[in-house]
């Protein structure tokens, strides 16, 4: 079974803090994705990566950055957390040429 894990299920941070969200997949997938999920808005793509050290902006990259130093790990970074970044963050991975995306359990981030 494909497994996508995220470092925390729940996280509470203060405004202005630097926040790291980690995602690891164990199926050697080339593509990895970070989404945020908000009620009524569905899932919106923040960033994705199709190879090590490669990244592309999604629909809402402002206020975020990413890092992919190893194939299995994709990190989302909030350089200076703000209250409007309070959300559920989902990581996903997909094999190159595949169509099914596998999701992690999500991290519910609260910024106070």
């Amino acid at each position, binding site marked *: 079974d494909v497994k996508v894990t995220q470092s925390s299920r729940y996280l509470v941070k203060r405004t202005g803090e630097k926040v790291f969200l980690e995602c690891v997949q164990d199926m050697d997938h080339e593509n990895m*994705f970070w989404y945020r999920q908000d009620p009524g*808005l*569905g*899932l919106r*793509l923040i960033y994705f990566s199709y190879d090590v050290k490669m990244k592309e902006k999604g629909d809402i990259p402002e206020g975020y950055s990413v890092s992919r130093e190893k194939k299995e790990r994709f990190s989302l970074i909030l350089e200076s957390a703000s209250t409007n970044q309070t959300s559920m963050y989902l990581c996903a991975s997909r094999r*190159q040429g595949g*169509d*099914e995306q596998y*999701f992690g*359990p999500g991290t519910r981030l609260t910024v106070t």
Partner: protein
Amino acid sequence: AQTVTQSQPEMSVQEAETVTLSCTYDTSENNYYLFWYKQPPSRQMILVIRQEAYKQQNATENRFSVNFQKAAKSFSLKISDSQLGDTAMYFCAFMKPKTSGSRLTFGEGTQLTVNP
């Protein structure tokens, strides 16, 4: 750019009955993929069913089937014999052909509640 619209934020159904969730999309592509994903409460999102646009036959997976109307750009999900475990948020999603960097575009989601 592609857009995906789910016009039913919430739906409910009685156990053992049939329910249909709606999804429309907008694209200028001719070849693409459509998906329904399920997100149960506090559990990971999983793929329910997929449809390739070049296939005219509607996809089915056990109790789940789709009604794919390419000309109308409509992709509805029918759940037959609904079970309590079907209670979840359901997302419709679109993807262009499987090339490097292809990405999913999701709808807003429909919260389905199956009542005993």
